[in-house]
């Protein structure tokens, strides 16, 4: 069952999960998962690591590493990106260094 964190919730610490995480709230810390979705109100200070997919519509301060990264138009990102494929929508505010890699080691199998 995927996790959903709404915008009335603040988390301080590291979150790991096997499947999918959706965050609309505030998180200080790292996330490791298969899929991470940061919605419009989401605010993350920390590194995001996902095996498959990361979608960012909110604010992220930190490094993002995933197979596929999709940056929505409402996103504000500061940090480094590591990915195999990258999509950036018009309007996103970015301050990033982006690196395309053939292979990423983001296995979340040994998370639990």
């Amino acid at each position, binding site marked *: *069952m*995927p*996790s*959903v*964190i*709404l*915008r*009335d*919730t*603040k*988390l*301080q*610490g*590291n*979150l*790991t*999960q*096997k*499947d999918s*995480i959706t965050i609309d*709230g505030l998180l*200080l*810390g790292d996330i490791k998962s298969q899929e991470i979705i940061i919605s419009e109100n989401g605010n993350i200070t920390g590194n995001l690591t996902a095996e498959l997919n990361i979608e960012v519509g909110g604010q992220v301060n930190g490094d993002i590493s995933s197979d596929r990264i999709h940056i929505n138009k409402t996103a504000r990102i500061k940090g480094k990106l590591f990915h195999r494929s990258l999509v950036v929508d018009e309007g996103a505010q970015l301050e990033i260094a982006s690196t395309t890699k053939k292979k990423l080691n983001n296995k979340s199998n040994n*998370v*639990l």
Partner: protein
Amino acid sequence: MFFKKYKKNQDQVDGFSHLGESSRFEGEIDCKGEMEIAGKVNGNIKAKKLRILESGTVRGTVYAEDVEVLGYISGNIESQNIHLGEKAIVKGDLNFENNLSVLAGADILGRIQKIKKDKLKKVDTDKVKYLDHTKAAS
């Protein structure tokens, strides 16, 4: 007048946050609304309404208005209303203000106390010092 109302609605959140079964979180949780935990949490939780599901495991202190435990918690609970389900396991003290309900089958290892009303209100949870649970975890 209308503007104010609009603003209020913006603050309100429908539904509740959910930490899934395969999730693991180490750190503090501060939720102004409702929260459901089905995974593992190491750390203190502050919420308005907290539900620890059968697969949920919490190690840490809980401050809330309503707490429903259907799973496992190791740590104290401070809340207005506490409900323990059939499969609940609580290792820690229960401090409640209004109501406590325990279903047959629940395990409790700790003290149970009804505390005076103003005592809980004095707990300004914003100022509750976060425990250094990372040390305890390692």
